[in-house]
C-alpha cells in the first residue's frame, strides 16, 4: 500500500495511490511521465522530495523500495537465447527471491497469464503476443505491492491491449497499487480509478473522473486535455492547479 507522502518530481508533482487502486499518469508525449516513473524507481535522483512505499523512503531505502516495485514498459524486450522459464527465474534472482518461492510463483503465473505451453521455448521463437505475456509475468515474479506500467499498450493491437487491460484487472484484484502512465486517454478512462493530468512537467489536474469533470466542465479526458494544450498555446498562463494530495 502506498501512503501518500509528498512526491516532488519533475516540477512539484505529488500524488498518492492506495491498495487496489489504478492511478493514471496522463499526458502527451514529453509531458514528463517517464521521468516521473524513473524517479519513483530510483533510476533518477530528484533534487528534492522522495517516494514512500510501505513506510520506506527512496532517499533512505532505495534498494528496499525497488524490491516493492514492479516495472513494465513499452520497450521491454526478452532474452532471445533464454527460455521463458530461464528468463523469469533470472528476474526472480535479480529480485533476490528464494528459488523455491520463485518456482511456485512461476507455476502460478503460468496459468494466470497462459504462458505454460511455451515455458521451455526460447524467447526468440515466441510471437509478439506471447512475448508480451512473458513481460507481464516478469513484472510479477517478485510479487511487488506496487506496479508501474509505462505506456504498456503502445504499439499493441486490440488483442494485445486487451491482455494489458485484463492484467491491470488482475493487479487490482490482487490489491496492488498501480501507476499507469499513458497518452491513450480513452484507455485510461476505461481502467483508471484516479488521474493525474501531466503537462510540461507539472500536474495540471488530479482526482477522480467526476472531480475532473466538475473542475473542467468537460466530460471526456480528451476534451480536458485539448483545452489544456490550447490554453497553453494561447499563452494564457494559468496558475498551476495541483490536485490535493
Amino acid at each position, binding site marked *: 500500500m502506498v501512503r501518500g507522502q509528498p512526491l516532488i518530481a519533475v516540477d512539484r508533482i505529488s500524488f498518492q495511490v492506495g491498495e487496489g487502486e489504478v492511478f493514471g499518469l496522463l499526458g502527451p508525449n514529453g509531458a514528463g511521465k517517464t521521468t516521473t516513473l524513473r524517479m519513483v524507481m530510483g533510476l533518477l535522483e530528484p533534487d528534492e522530495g522522495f517516494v514512500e512505499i510501505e513506510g520506506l523512503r527512496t532517499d533512505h531505502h532505495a*534498494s528496499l523500495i525497488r524490491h516493492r516495485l514492479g516495472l513494465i514498459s513499452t520497450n*521491454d524486450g*526478452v532474452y532471445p537465447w533464454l527460455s521463458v522459464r530461464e528468463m523469469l527465474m533470472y528476474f526472480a534472482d*535479480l529480485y533476490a527471491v*528464494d528459488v523455491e518461492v520463485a518456482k511456485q510463483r512461476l507455476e502460478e503465473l503460468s496459468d494466470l497469464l497462459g504462458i505454460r505451453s511455451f515455458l521451455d521455448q526460447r524467447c526468440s521463437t515466441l510471437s509478439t503476443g506471447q512475448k508480451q505475456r512473458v513481460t507481464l509475468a516478469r513484472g510479477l515474479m517478485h510479487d511487488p505491492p506496487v506496479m508501474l506500467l509505462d505506456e504498456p499498450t503502445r504499439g499493441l493491437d486490440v488483442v494485445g491491449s486487451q491482455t494489458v487491460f485484463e492484467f491491470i484487472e488482475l493487479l487490482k484484484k490482487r490489491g496492488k497499487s498501480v501507476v499507469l502512465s499513458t497518452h491513450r486517454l480513452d484507455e485510461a478512462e476505461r481502467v483508471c480509478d484516479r488521474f493525474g493530468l501531466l503537462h510540461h512537467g507539472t500536474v495540471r489536474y488530479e482526482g477522480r473522473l467526476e472531480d475532473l469533470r466538475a473542475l473542467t466542465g468537460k466530460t471526456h479526458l480528451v476534451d480536458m486535455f485539448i483545452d489544456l494544450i490550447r490554453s497553453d498555446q494561447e499563452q494564457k498562463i494559468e496558475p498551476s492547479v495541483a490536485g490535493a494530495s
Partner: protein
Amino acid sequence: MQEYFSKGRLGRLCLKELRESLRDRRTIITLILMPILVYPLLSMALQRLILGTVSGPSDKQAYVLGAADETTAQVIAAALRETQRAAGEGIRPSIDIVRLPPRSVGDDSTSTEPDESTNQAIRIHRDAAFSLVVPDGLSVGEALRNGVLDLAVQVGTVQKRALGDGRSSPVFDFEMEFREGDPRSEAAMLEFRKAMQLVNDYQSAMLRGPSIPPAVQLLATAVGQRMDPTASLAGVLPLVLILMTITGAVYPAIDLTAGERERGTMEAMIATPAPRFILLLSKYVAVVTVAVLTALANLFASWVTLSTGGLGKALLGDRGFSFWALVQILPLLVIFAAFFSAILLAMCSFARSFKEAQAYLIPVMLVSLAPALVTLMPNIEFSTLLGIVPLVNILLLSRDIMTGAPAALPAFAAVISTLMYAAAALVVASRLFGAESATAGSQESWSEMFQRPKKWRELPDLGELAIYLAFLFPIFFIVTNLAGQQNLSIANRLWTNAALLLILFLLCPACFAWYRKLRYRSTFLLHFGAPVGSGPAWLGAIRWVGGLVAAVLLGLGFWIIAYEVLKTLSDWGFGKLSLERSGTLDQLTREFRQIPFWIIFATSALIPAIAEEFFFRGFVLSAFRHRVSNGRAILYSALIFGVFHVINGSTLSIERFVPTLLIGLALGLLAVRTRSLWPGILTHTIHNGLLFWLTRFDKQELEKWLGADNEHFPWIWIVGSVLVVGAGLLVLWLSTPDPSHESPT
C-alpha cells in the same frame, strides 16, 4: 548486497549471461570455427614466408663465400679444388662433388667473378655448395654483416709442402668470419670447415702419418651482435593469441551490455534492486569465460598446428612450442582476458546500441594494436619499464616464455599491474554500466564519475581503492626502479626512498581522500586515545595503554620472527637476502655504519612506518572494512602490503612476501582492535628499527649473539620472540573491545 552472494545466486546470474553468450551462434563461430581456420591458414602463410628466409640451407642455393680480393679468391678456389681432388682420389667416396653452372649470388654490382675457375659454385655434397664472390665497393666484413655473404674468408700464409710421391700440396692458413646466430651463416662456416677437414684427411692419408700438421689451418670468428631471428618471430604467436582472445571477448562484451539495451531488457534489469556491480560482475565473469575459452581453443589449435608441422621449430627454435610453454602461457592469457574484458565492458557500457559499441571499440582495438606491433620488432627487450605497459607486457612475457626464460621482475610487474588495471577497469565499467545518463542519452557519465562527491564519507569504497592502486602500482614501480638506478650515496638513497614513501603512501592518498571527500579521521584511523566504545574513562585509558603495550611487545618480538622467516625462505632457495644480492653484505654494512644511526632510523624505520601505516592500515584496510568482515579486510590489506614489498629497488625479492604478509596481519589486527593507526606506527617503527640496528654490528660482534654460523638466531632467542609476540597478542586481545560488535566506523 549480501543476498546476492549467498545461495548460489551470483552463480546463477553468471550462468544466465553465459547461456546467453554461448547459445549465440556468433560466439560459437569465433570460439570454434576461427581457431580451426586461422592457424592452418596462418601456418601455411608463415611457412612460405619463414621457412624460406630463416631456416637452414636449401639444397639448391650455394653458400656465398666472400674474399677480399681476387688473389684470395683464387686461393680459396684452390683449397676447394683440393677438396674435390681429395674426393676424386676416393678418400670420401660418399661425398658427391659436382660442378654447377655459374650462378649469380647477391647483388651483381657488389660481386665480380675473379676467374673462370672460381666462376662456378663448387658442390661438395648434396647439402653444400660454395660460390665465391669478391664484393665490390665494400669490405668483406661489411658484406658479411649486410647479409650479402654467408661467410668471409681471409687467407694468411700459403706454403707448399711436398707429398711423398713427388707431388706437392699447398698449406693454407684461413680465417673465417661468420654471423653468430644466423643459421645460414653458421651452416656455411661448418660446411667450409668440413670441406677443409677433408683436405687435411686427404693429405694425412697421402703422407701416411696422423701426426702431420693439417694442411689447412682454420680460425673462426663470430661477428656482429648475436641476433636471434626466432625471438622476433616468436612474438607473432602471442600477438595472434592475444588478438584472438580479444576477438572472443568482443562479441559477448557488446552483446551483454549494449545488446541488453538494444533488446529492451536493460531498463527492467536496472530497475531491480540488484546492485549494478553485481549485474556487471556476472557479465564480466561471462565475458572472461568466453574469452578464456577462446584463448584455450586458440592455444590448443596453435599448439597442434605448430607441433605437427615444422613451423614450431622454425618459429621458436629447436624446442618448438613445448607443452610446458603452453601451460605457462594459458594463465597469462587468462590474466589478459581478465584485463581486456574489463576494458571492453567499460567501453560498451557507454554505448546504447550494437553499432555504437562497435564504433567505440574499433579505435580502442587499433590503438592497442599499435604498441602490440612494437613487440614484433627484433631485439626488443622485455625491460622493467615495459613490464607495466598494458598489453605490451603480456605480449613480451609470452614471447619470452616461448623462447626461453623471462626476466623475473618485469614478469612480476606485468602480472600484478595487469590485474590491478583489470580491477580498476571493472570499477569504471560498473559505474558506467546502466548509468542513467546512458539510458537517457546524455554523455556526461565519464565526467560525473571523476567529479567530487557531494557528501563527505567515513570510509573509501573498494572502487576508489582499485583506481588508486591501478595508478599507484606502476608509479611506485617506475619510481623505485629509477631511484635504484641512480648513482647516489647510501645516505642520499635512504633519504630519497623515505621521501618517495611519504609522497606515494601519505601525501597522495591524503590528497585523493580530500578530493573524494573521505573523512581523514575514520579513513586513516587517526583516532588517538581510548578506542570508541571503551566505556568509562578509566577503562578507556587502560585499553589505550594496553594497546600501546601490545604494540611495543609486537615490535620487540616480531623482527626476529621476520628475520628467521626471511632467512629460512632464502635457505630454501627463494631468492637470497637482498643485501647479499645487491653487493657484499660486509661492504654495505661498513658503509651503513658510517652513516649516523639517526638517519637510518628516520629513513628506514620511522618514516616508512608512518607512511606505510597511513596507506596500508589506513586507506587500504578501511576500503576493505567497508565491504568485508574485519578478518578478511586484514588479510587482503596484508596481501597488498606483501606484494608492494616484493619490489625492492630494481630487484625482485620474492622471499620478502611471507614475512611482510605476517607483519601486515599483525599490524592490521592491531589497527582494527585499537581503532587507531598510532599503535601500529609504534610497532612498525620498533620492528624496522631493530632490524636495521642489526646492521650496526660487525661479523665478530654478531657471532657472539648468533653463533658461529652467523646465519640464524639461537633457538632461545626465537622462542623468546615468539613468547613476546604471543604476550603482545594476548594483551591486545584482553585490553581492547571486540570490534565485531560495532559498525566499521
